[in-house]
C-alpha cells in the first residue's frame, strides 16, 4: 500500500478516516453524512471516467438512478436482503452501462458527452413510465432490512458504518485500479489516444471497461442511497444530477483521489444549508459555481492544493542551490 500514496496523501487519508469514524459522535447528522458519502461514491465513479480516462459522460445520473430504482424495488417488493439488493442494483447499472457504452464509445469528446446525455434521457423516460417505479411519486417506503438477514440496519449509526465500510472499500479499489497497469493504459488514452492506439492497445475495449466499471460503482452509490433514505425518485435519474456530479468532481479536483469526495461534501452540504434559506436561488448559486470553476478554478480544491505543494517543494531545492551558488 505504501507505493499507492505519497506520504502526505496517506497521512491525509488516515486523518479523513478518523474524522469519518468520529463524525456521528461529534454532532454530524448521520443521515446527512450517509447521503454525502453516497454522492461522494458517485462522484468517485464519475472521476474514474473523466479524471482518469478523459471520457465526459453527461448521463451518469441514469445509472445511479436506475440502480436506485432496481435496488429499491427488489428490497421492498421482492423481499431481497440489502446486500443482495445492492448487488442487483450494481448489475442493473453495469448492464445499462454496457449498452450505452457500446453505442457512445464510437464517438469522442463532445459527441460522447451528448450521446450519453441522450441515452440517459431515454433511461429517464423509461423510469417515468415503467409500471413499478411509481411515476412522478417515485418508489416510496423502501425498508433498510437486515444485513445478511442478521444485522438490522434500521439504526442510523449501524447504517452509517455499513455505508462508510462500503465507501472506504470502493475508494481503495479505485486507487488500486488507477495504479494498476490497466489504469496506466487508461491514463495513456486520456493523454494521447492516437498514440495509445499506435502502441497496439485496443482502446475501445479499455474505454468500454472503464465505462462499465464506472457505471457499476455509480449503481452501488444509487442502491445505497435508496437504502439510506428509503426512497428512489425521478430526481435520481434526471440529467440535472448528471450535471451536479460533474460539478462535484470539477470543484473538488478532476483526476485526484480525494477531489470528488471533497466536491461532493461541499455541494451536498451547500444544498442542505441553502435549501431552506434561499429557495430557487440554489440553482443559480450552483450555476455560478460552475461558471467560476470552468473559468478560473479548473484544478479544483484538491488539484490546487497539490499544485501548490509541488511548486513549493520544487522551489525549495532550487532555493538551496541558489544559496550554495551565492556562498561559493
Amino acid at each position, binding site marked *: 500500500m505504501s507505493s499507492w500514496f505519497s506520504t502526505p496523501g496517506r497521512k491525509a487519508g488516515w486523518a479523513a478516516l478518523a474524522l469519518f469514524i468520529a463524525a456521528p459522535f461529534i454532532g454530524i447528522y448521520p443521515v446527512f453524512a450517509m447521503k454525502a458519502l453516497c454522492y461522494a461514491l458517485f462522484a468517485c465513479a464519475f472521476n474514474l471516467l473523466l479524471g482518469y480516462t478523459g471520457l465526459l459522460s*453527461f448521463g451518469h445520473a441514469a445509472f445511479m438512478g436506475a440502480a436506485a430504482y432496481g435496488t429499491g424495488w427488489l428490497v421492498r417488493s421482492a423481499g431481497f436482503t440489502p446486500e443482495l439488493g445492492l448487488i442487483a442494483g450494481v448489475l442493473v447499472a453495469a448492464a445499462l452501462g454496457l449498452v450505452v457504452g457500446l453505442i457512445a464509445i464510437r464517438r469522442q469528446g463532445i*459527441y460522447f458527452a*451528448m450521446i450519453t446525455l*441522450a*441515452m440517459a*434521457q*431515454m433511461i429517464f423516460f*423509461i423510469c417515468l413510465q415503467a409500471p413499478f417505479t411509481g411515476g412522478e411519486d417515485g418508489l416510496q417506503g423502501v425498508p433498510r432490512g437486515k444485513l445478511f438477514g442478521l444485522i438490522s440496519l434500521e439504526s442510523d449509526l449501524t447504517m452509517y458504518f455499513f455505508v462508510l465500510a462500503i465507501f472506504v472499500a470502493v475508494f481503495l479499489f479505485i486507487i488500486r485500479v488507477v495504479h494498476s497497469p490497466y489504469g496506466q493504459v487508461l491514463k495513456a488514452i486520456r493523454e494521447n489516444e492516437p498514440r495509445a492506439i499506435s502502441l497496439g492497445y485496443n482502446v475501445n475495449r479499455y474505454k468500454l471497461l472503464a465505462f462499465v466499471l464506472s457505471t457499476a460503482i455509480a449503481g452501488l452509490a444509487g442502491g445505497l442511497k435508496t437504502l439510506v433514505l428509503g426512497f428512489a425518485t425521478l430526481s435520481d435519474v434526471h440529467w440535472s444530477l448528471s450535471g451536479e456530479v460533474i460539478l462535484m468532481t470539477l470543484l473538488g479536483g478532476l483526476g485526484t483521489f480525494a477531489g470528488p469526495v471533497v466536491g461532493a461534501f461541499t455541494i451536498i452540504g451547500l444544498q442542505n444549508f441553502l435549501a431552506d434559506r434561499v429557495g430557487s*436561488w440554489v440553482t443559480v*448559486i450552483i450555476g455560478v459555481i460552475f461558471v467560476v470553476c470552468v473559468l478560473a478554478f479548473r484544478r479544483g480544491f484538491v488539484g490546487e492544493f497539490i499544485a501548490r505543494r509541488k511548486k513549493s517543494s520544487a522551489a525549495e531545492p532550487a532555493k538551496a542551490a541558489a544559496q550554495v551558488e551565492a556562498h561559493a
Partner: protein
Amino acid sequence: MTEIFGIPIQAFMGQLMLGLVNGSFYAMLSLGLAVIFGLLGIVNFAHGALYMIGAYVAWFSLETFGINYWAALLIAPIVVGALGLVIERSLLKHLYKLDPIYGLLLTFGLALIFEGVFREQYGVSGQSYAVPELLQGATNLGFMVLPNYRAWVIVASLIVCLGTWALIEKTSLGAKLRAGTENPALVQAFGINVPLMVMFTYAGGAALAAIAGVLAAPVIQITPLMGSNLIIVVFAVVVIGGMGSILGSILTGLVLGLIEGLTKVFYPEASSIVVFVIMAIVLMIRPAGLFGKEK
C-alpha cells in the same frame, strides 16, 4: 377515405402537423447549435435557456408594454442577441484554446443560472401567450382542419432556416465564416476580423434561438423549464444529423419531428423516446451521423 391505418384521418393528419411544428423548432434550434459549434467549437448548452428567454421577452413585452407579437418577433432576437454578445465577450472567449468540454460545462452553468433566475421570478407554473389576431382561426383543407398559427410556424421556420443556410452557403460573408472555421489564423491574415465574426456568430445563434422562442410562445406554456426539456432532444437531433452540418440539422429536425408525431399516433408511450432510439440505431450504422463527416 376517412381512416388511415385504422386511425381517423383527421387525428392522423393532426398529429403529423403537430410533429411538423415540433420538427420546425428542432430544426431552428439545432441550426443555431450547428452555427455556433461550427465557428466557436462550443456546444452551447445554454441554447435552450436562450430559447426560453426569447419566449419570456415576447410575453413580458406584451404584458408590460403592450408590444404585439410581430414587434416581439423583432425585439426578442435583438435582446437575446445582445445577451449573446455579452456572454461571448465576458465568458466564452476565455475558453477557445481549451478542450471543447469546458465550453459545454460553462454554458451548462449559464443555463442553470438563467433557469434559476426565471424560476425565482415567475415560478414554475406556465404563462400563456395569445395567438396574434391575424393568425387566429383555422383553414379547412378538406382532409383536415389546419390551425393558421401552426401553418405560420412551419412557414416561418422554413424561411428562417433556409435564410440562414443561404447566408452561410451562398454569400461572401458566409464564405468568410466557413473559412474562419477551417483556419482562423489564415483568415485573420487576410485582414478579416475573426474575433468580431466569432462574437456576432454567437449572437446570431442566440437570436435564432430567441426567434424559435417567440414562435413557440403561442403554442406552448411558457415556463422557465421549457428550454431544458427541449434541448436534450435537440442534442439527439444534432447527433443524428451530424454536428456542424447546416442542411443536415434542418432536414433531421423536420423529419424527426414528423417521426415523433407518427409515433404518437401508433404507440404514444414510446413517443418521448423514439428520437433517442433512432439516435442509437443511426450511430451504430453511421457513427458520424447522417450528414456528418468522419474526422
